[in-house]
């Protein structure tokens, strides 16, 4: 798994690519979320477009990212989530927790609502 961080209008966008599965890869996401929070960002978007595969540990890491950000007063949203990831989130009632958007523009605009 790889994570690249962009700054768009003071929103940290984390472009995630590859397999989000159990193992060392998950620490990569954890570290990037922690780093952008330490850099002062309070608005985060996880861009899921490049995610090729996810398992329950990967879903758990999304939840950890969400709790890390929200407990520090921030907001975290998902964008371009594939249907299968949405299905996994839906089955475990997590679509009620995560705000998910089709595109980046709408996700960024939603922070200002």
């Amino acid at each position: 798994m790889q994570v690249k961080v962009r700054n768009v209008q003071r929103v940290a966008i984390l472009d995630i690519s590859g397999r989000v599965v159990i193992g060392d890869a998950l620490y990569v996401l954890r570290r990037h979320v922690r780093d952008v929070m330490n850099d002062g960002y309070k608005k985060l978007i996880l861009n899921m477009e490049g995610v090729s595969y996810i398992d329950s540990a990967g879903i758990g890491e999304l939840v950890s990212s969400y709790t890390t950000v929200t407990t520090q007063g921030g907001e975290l949203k998902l964008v371009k989530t594939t249907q299968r990831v949405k299905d996994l989130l839906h089955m475990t009632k997590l679509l009620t927790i995560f705000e998910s958007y089709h595109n980046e523009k709408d996700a960024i605009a939603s922070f200002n609502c």
Partner: protein
Amino acid sequence: MSENYEQIRLRFPSKLFFVDISQEAIQKMLEHFMVLNDEVFWISLAIREGLINAVKHGNKFDDTKYVELRVGLRGNTLRIEIMDEGKGFEIKDIPNPLDEENLLKPSGRGIFYIRSFMDHVAFSRIDSSGMRVIMEKNVSFED
């Protein structure tokens, strides 16, 4: 589709690397038998979750302990058996990830997903030497 019984058996030390390899092998097997693409995805995810459970919670990542996977297809019935060499656990003790207090927990969804994707799932102890999970699913085939 032939009624012949086709089975694959894999046995590996408790390392996550082997989970990836095993999942890939079973995925290829299901594709070879032309199981519907969408079903291959969910079944192989259920197998992955079962194998991770055996490596992590069963054998506690002890690579002197082994995990065994058997996957058999008879007609349209797929039977999967996963065995570990751990101390076992009580299935009733596993928290429901859908309960309000568990929604934001980072783990505990694997067995729930397995039960969601498969038609039948049973957990049992292998005497004093580990746990066995049996999963079954009636699969559909590509035209």
